[in-house]
């Protein structure tokens, strides 16, 4: 069976001399899920960005292992899905163009990816507006599109940073369903300051305990 592990050893991050967090260690494997808690500005998003390989920690080691073999950092992108407020898609392109572009980059072209794109767009209720430029979408619609972007390549590790942002109750339900289906096999990490989201994961850590 294909196994995945995300391991951080004593990672620390400082910005302009200010400690965001220090000596944070964790070890997550397929089937594990973790909620990262903390107030606004406490460093939850920074931790997510570091764990997703988007920025570097100042100290400590971070590994991604697949079948016990370290994945080169430049290849992490193929294992990771992320939905977050600081990740945008291309406003001038339509939903279909955005998803075809990103699926193409992830080497998933042809009718298979088109079918999958249409199926996801249907699921989140964006199918009718699939050919409109994303700049015409409401914030909630953009968030749903970002959710598709995060899960369409079936990532081994799914990061959800404030996943409820701008979503209505139907959108939140879709986020919950997505999280539940993902955590069975992959790693799920949710950053939130909403107490209801704690239910999404089996473990939690408070980033403020690492100051």
């Amino acid at each position, binding site marked *: 069976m294909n196994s995945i592990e995300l391991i951080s050893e004593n990672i620390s991050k400082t910005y302009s001399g200010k400690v965001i967090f220090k000596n944070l260690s964790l070890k997550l494997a397929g089937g594990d899920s973790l909620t990262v808690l903390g107030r606004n500005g406490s460093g939850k998003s920074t931790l997510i*960005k570091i764990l*997703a*390989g*988007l*920025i*570097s920690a100042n100290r400590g080691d971070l590994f991604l292992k697949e079948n016990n073999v370290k994945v080169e*950092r*430049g*290849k992490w*992108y193929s294992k*990771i*899905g*992320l939905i*977050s407020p*600081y*990740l*945008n*898609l*291309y*406003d*001038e*392109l339509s939903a279909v*163009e955005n998803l075809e*572009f*990103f699926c*193409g*980059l*992830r*080497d998933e072209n042809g009718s298979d990816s088109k079918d999958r794109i249409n199926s996801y767009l249907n699921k989140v209720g964006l199918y009718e507006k699939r050919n409109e*430029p994303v700049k015409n979408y409401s914030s909630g619609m953009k968030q749903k599109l970002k959710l598709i*972007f995060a899960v369409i390549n079936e990532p081994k590790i799914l990061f959800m940073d404030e996943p409820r942002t701008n979503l209505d109750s139907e959108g939140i339900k879709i986020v919950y369903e997505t999280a539940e289906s993902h955590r069975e096999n992959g790693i799920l990490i949710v950053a939130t300051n909403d107490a209801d989201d704690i239910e999404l994961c089996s473990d939690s850590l408070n980033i403020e305990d690492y100051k």
Partner: protein
Amino acid sequence: MLLKNSYLVFKKDLSSELRTRYVINSLLMFVLVIISIIRFAIGDEKVDNEILTGLLWIAIFFTSVSGLSRTFVKEEEKETSFSLKLSTGSNSVILGKLFFNLILTFSLNLLILFLFVIITDYEIKNFSGFMIVIVFGNLGLVSASTIIAAIISKANSKGTLYPVLSFPVLLPLLITVINATKLASVGVETGKLLGEIQILLSYFIVVTVASLMLFKYVWED
């Protein structure tokens, strides 16, 4: 895989640009302004080809400096760089951006050259040699400008940093290309320009290889 993804990044940049005209409109305006200024400054004076060559490269350099940084800066400003990072490797991104900048720069520089020849008495006696020099000069200019654009896109004061950083890196290229363009314009045979052409080609290869090796550190941090 690398070429396919580079092509996809190039295609995305091109279709985004054609829809938003984020760079093209401002650059076209810039070209018209700079060409008009040159026209008004020269007036009815008879100007030597040597000076005109310098003016031509001033127009080309500043147009490139004002436009080429936008491809990376836009990704940072619109917060789309993370989605790109989560979808492909760094080399596909730099190559895709390089292809896009090459097409943009070649198109604009042909326009600059066309307008420049019309508004001045600029004579090009060895046209084939002249065009070879322009092509190789542009390759180096775009290659260096693209990696510098990637570096400055992470900085706060992007507008100021770009010309400051690019000038010393581009200086050897500019000195060579201006000299070779001048020689070709006064009719020196292409065979006698081989030294300059080799320098321009070497500059392009060295900077492109260095960009491919260094870009992942810029992109991944």
